[in-house]
């Protein structure tokens, strides 16, 4: 198995024939008192073993909802209206809730933004890690404890034997996030989805957590989906990037190509509006206006109202994807011309 996946990951750079996890044409709607709103509109994503897919977008662009929907974790008002979620040859949208529960936390795991909210305050950290080991791997309590302590060591929690018995409030933010990661990797998942894993943390701790995630990815040969709004984090940790805007993927590219030569006007705008620590700019070039709320999503290009290059072709129909290379595509009628 491990041999197979290693060869796959090296091939992945050339051609991604069979990705480990693939979202095809996924659409999600939410029922609200004011009617039905579509928050995710025909999203395609894929990630292969050993790779990190960075999913970047502003708040409300649908990046979290896409992943939650793929794992059947939508809130009661959310519905998937179309699409397939292929994981290891199975469609996750078709399997029963029981099978899904077996899969989640075992083969697919998730890490969320705020560790303090995700952890149960009245159970010890050790108990919470052991729980999934007993449940998914059928370990005895003693065995689970031994393994949990190993996991705490693995994610870099010092003095793991004593900390096993401590409660979440005794952990700092960074340590809790490490504990959450320990829990997520407890069953050696093939896919880890990290939803803004470092947003609530200080920069020095963020650097530590990103390093930990990339080490673990290599060690366990996982596929990693990193959801974030921070292009700095993307540049730091992702192999491939999908840029989302207003419920759609607008550009997909390997990380170097994206930062060297963004093609979608939105990606370009986003990159040039970033304040940079490594250079002084006289004035930030802001994108005018704000991203539309889901109630105001249009069929045509949703960036049109803020874009300086739009014309009649942009409205009315959804801009189709232009395939640039095997790993790169863009949905823009007037992509940025490279200089």
């Amino acid at each position, binding site marked *: 198995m491990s041999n197979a996946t290693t060869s796959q990951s090296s091939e992945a750079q050339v051609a991604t024939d069979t990705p480990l996890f693939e979202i095809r044409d996924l659409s999600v709607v939410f029922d609200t008192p004011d009617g039905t709103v579509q928050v995710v509109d025909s999203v395609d994503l894929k990630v292969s073993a050993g790779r990190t897919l960075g999913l970047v977008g502003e708040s409300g662009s649908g990046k979290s909802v896409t992943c939650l929907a793929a794992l059947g974790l939508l809130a009661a008002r959310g519905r998937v209206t179309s699409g397939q979620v292929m994981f290891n040859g199975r469609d996750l949208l078709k399997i029963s809730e029981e099978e899904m529960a077996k899969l989640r936390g075992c083969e697919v795991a998730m890490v969320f933004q705020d560790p303090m909210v995700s952890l149960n305050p009245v159970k010890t950290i050790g108990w919470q890690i052991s729980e999934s080991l007993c449940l998914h791997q059928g370990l005895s309590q003693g065995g689970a404890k031994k393994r949990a302590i190993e996991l705490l060591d693995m994610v870099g929690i010092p003095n793991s034997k004593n900390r096993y018995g401590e409660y979440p409030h005794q952990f700092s*933010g960074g340590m809790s996030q490490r504990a959450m990661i320990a829990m997520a990797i407890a069953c050696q998942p093939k896919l880890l989805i990290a939803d803004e894993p470092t947003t609530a943390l200080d*920069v*020095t701790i963020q650097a530590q957590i990103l390093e930990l995630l990339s080490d673990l990815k290599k060690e366990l040969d996982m596929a990693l989906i990193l959801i974030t709004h921070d292009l*700095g984090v993307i540049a730091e940790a992702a192999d491939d990037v999908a840029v989302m805007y207003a419920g759609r993927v607008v550009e997909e590219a390997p990380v*170097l190509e994206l*930062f060297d030569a963004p093609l979608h006007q939105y990606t370009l705008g986003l990159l040039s509006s970033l*304040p940079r620590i490594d250079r002084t700019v006289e004035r930030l070039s802001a994108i005018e206006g704000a991203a539309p709320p889901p109630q105001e999503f249009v069929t045509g290009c949703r960036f049109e109202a803020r874009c300086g290059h739009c014309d009649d072709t942009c409205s009315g129909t959804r801009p189709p994807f232009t395939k640039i290379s095997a790993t790169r595509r863009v949905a823009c009628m007037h992509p940025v011309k490279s200089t």
Partner: protein
Amino acid sequence: MKKAIDTNTKAVKPEILMEVRDLVRHFIGPRTSFFGKRKIAHAINGVSFDLYAGETLGLVGESGCGKSTTGQLILNLMEPTSGSVTFLGKDITTLNKQEWRSMRREMQLVFQNPLGALNPRLTIGSQIREPLDIHNIGDADERNAIVLEMFEAVSLPPHLLERYPHQLSGGQQQRVVIARALIISPKLVVCDESVSALDVSVQAQVVNLLVDLQKKLGLTYLFITHDLSVVRHISNRIAVMYLGRIVELADSETLLENPLHPYTRALISAVPVPDPRARASRATIKGEPPNPFNPPSGCAFNARCPHADDKCRTVLPDFRELAEKHMVACHHAEALVGNQKPNLS
């Protein structure tokens, strides 16, 4: 604009708007035992700096380092345990209520979360107008005129005046908060993580707005944030805080291009740069900031510092001027000059 101020500082000594000296603030912790003493957290431990008229001073640090507490103390929203804050020649910590009322017009605060700072039941227009009502400025017509003018200054369309906060987007809400803070023309504005909650594209708009308004109205900003990239863009000078003390203070470029304190270096190298080619050049520091209830002896950074020795573990380093206008609190700062510049590009 930065250059304009730089040349000013060389030609004439800039006017000092506010002098903060040896500010200390302790918090008393919760009772953990019926008989035992309650622990004291040293949130602010002797902070001193000057704010020059018309400049932006960036105050950066990780959560819990005391940057927001400093902001509240200099606005007299909280009483310091000791120390003084001199604003326009008066120590504001000793003012009586009446003197304070007229003084507080000169200083305003803009918070991180605009929706939390706005009243959900009042229209935008009446909220922006409220400071004028409170301070009794002008008659009704004049007030309305000032509100309209301010609304235009923060580039909001006039039809939003009758709306309620929840009907506005995050960026628009923050513009309203800024308009409300600036309408009584204060001299000093403390921005506490004012742009941190906004998406990057909107963040850039608000940062540009703050810079424009500063030029137009001659404001002085104390810009509190954890985001070093934003602070480089907006500040003339930057102060780095760690566990209740300022550890380094210098002009923005100097501080970011040639940091002297090991903590500043670690902080800068931890910031993810939006350039995938800059990967792997970083040195991450181990560990986490110490607990203010139980601060280490000597330099607060000693447990995480690669240069720490016995002196660092026992003696508190002085905050001293090492180069021109470059203050640093580290025993080894001299040895670090010019050496190990963090690799940014």
